[in-house]
């Protein structure tokens, strides 16, 4: 009896390990090992031709203490937070409308179509829209509304605009999925019990789609915070984000330890952000 019990419990453990093995290998090779390498590099001396000298050094972190990097960190947080807020403000009503529409699958197609074009091409396309010779400026000049070009590119607002554009579909999809499952008779019930339209939305709809909102937040905030391509293409030296600085230090700056240290900072802030969002969700469950 004991033996068979022991065996069966032991077999369970074995199967669990076996089934999770591919995932374990995947994560170890592609996530843990690279992360470990980055951590190691950040504590080493820089090699002036790129790469690192295998000597322990805290120089990278001393460099990081420079206030210029702190400014960039703040700017990165600012851009990521603003992009997340605007994306969500657009995604919520869009997802709501899609979920209630008769033309669900058509609207879904419209959301997915941009993915058929490469991300970089779509970012470059914004230059054609916002640039000095872009559509908007040309139109305003021809109609005589303005006399000179308006510089719309190369500032934080342009970067935020393109971020919102890029991550909107990622924010809409999880929201759409959860709103579509939402039982709308609950809103009628809330109205019936005395709630105004906005009360029924804030007290019934939002709490019930909270997990979708958090997923959308993470899907927007994480890639926005670590973004490299958009500030590189749409922005300039005034719109530096951590991602662009890492790339610069890794290539032209030839300071791999510093790039690694910034990477660690970026990862740390992201992890803290994720923990804040998800712990809020846990608190909600506790209250329930």
């Amino acid at each position: 009896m004991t033996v068979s019990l022991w065996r069966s419990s032991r077999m369970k453990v074995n199967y669990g390990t076996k089934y999770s093995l591919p995932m374990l290998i995947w994560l170890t090779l592609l996530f843990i090992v690279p992360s470990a390498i980055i951590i190691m590099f950040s504590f080493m001396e820089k090699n002036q031709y790129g790469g690192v000298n295998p000597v322990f050094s805290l120089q990278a972190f001393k460099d990081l203490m420079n206030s210029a990097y702190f400014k960039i960190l703040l700017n990165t947080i600012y851009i990521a937070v603003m992009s997340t807020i605007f994306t969500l403000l657009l995604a919520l009503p869009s997802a709501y409308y899609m979920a209630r529409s008769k033309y669900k699958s058509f609207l879904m197609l419209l959301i997915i179509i941009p993915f058929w074009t490469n991300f970089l091409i779509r970012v470059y396309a914004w230059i054609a829209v916002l640039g000095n010779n872009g559509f908007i400026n040309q139109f305003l000049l021809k109609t005589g509304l303005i006399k000179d070009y308006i510089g719309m590119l190369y500032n934080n607002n342009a970067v935020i605009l393109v971020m919102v554009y890029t991550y909107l579909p990622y924010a809409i999809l999880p929201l759409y999925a959860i709103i579509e499952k939402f039982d709308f008779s609950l809103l009628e019930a809330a109205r019936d019990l005395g709630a105004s339209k906005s009360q029924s939305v804030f007290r019934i709809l939002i709490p019930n789609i909270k997990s979708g909102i958090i997923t959308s937040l993470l899907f927007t905030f994480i890639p926005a915070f670590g973004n490299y391509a958009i500030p590189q293409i749409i922005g300039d030296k005034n719109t530096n984000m951590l991602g662009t600085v890492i790339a610069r230090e890794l290539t032209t700056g030839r300071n791999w330890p510093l790039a690694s240290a910034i990477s660690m900072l970026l990862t740390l802030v992201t992890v803290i952000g994720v923990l804040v969002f998800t712990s809020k969700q846990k608190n909600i469950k506790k209250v329930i």
Partner: protein
Amino acid sequence: MNGSNIKVKNVNKIFDDFYALNDVNIDIKAGEFYSLLGPSGCGKTTILRMIGGFDEPSDGIIYLDNTNLLELPPNKRPVNTIFQSYALFPHLNVYENIAFPLRLKKYSEQEIKEKVQKNLSLVKLEEHIYKMPSQLSGGQKQRIAIARALVNQPKVLLLDEPLSALDAQLRQHMLLELDSIHDEVGITFIFVTHDQQEALSVSDRIAVMNEGRVLQIGSPFEIYETPADKFVANFIGETNFIKGKVTEVMDKYAKISSENVGDIYVYLDKKVEKGSTVHVTVRPEKIRITKEKPQNLPETFNLFRGKANKLIYKGFQTNFFVDVNEKFTFKVLKQHARYILDEGIINWYEDVYIWWNVDDGFIVEVEQNEG
């Protein structure tokens, strides 16, 4: 009386050229248990949603006491609804679900607690106060929905097929409970159902609807015993329809000759003329069935000889299908008291006599296009 009366006046609901509701007039008294009964798609739920404020009539007015309900948004109406799906808020526990309308009105925590507990004890679910809706059974959810709807002290409670998701036994139980809650709170209940048994057993009055029209309004026994037309007769309970031509009109009765059945006499509750085609209804339980030729027949009766071609024995009763003249099948229902001892057992394919009192058969429809 805590309830209010509801007046639905000349209400129409038109989609393109389809009348979902066609000139509906309903007058519900304060404190009444009023049922809207009809098959799905007859418009009964639409009326309920209009009273609740989730639908608007194309024209017509709905009054609550003397106020025009249509001018108020749903949250301002002194009316609460029990939804078919219960519509309990899944992110709130039982306590918070019931407290929801009170919190909107900014009651104090103490008042909320008292009211929630009072309403929970009304539906006898005090011990489930901190459970989540997902942890409750269908019947319990139903009761929480009732408690939540009543906590606002509405003047009228709207019930949209509240029992359709429950199993048969629980349904009976909840029906009795609804009835006793109605007695206790004394407000007006408007109960929408497609189940005639439910409607008959609890209502003070019933409005029978079909295809957007109200066909008959009356007490349960009026609806059952004296259906206004063929649809009502057929929808409420089972019945036998006999089609025939009027051959003789007397002062109380008429003689009708049917191709299938032969000559029958019926009670004259409608004016008919000689020669017009009519539909006669006789309820199966009003027809007696015997093996021997019956004795002690009343003064006026219809007697036929037939063959019990099919019978369904149900213990307390038997449903017979009796062929008369090999052309017409009568549904006959016999309630058993001492089946084996006193009542002669009737077997399949046996010859039987069936008869009913002339007063129990009457005309439900007169066909118009007769000369």
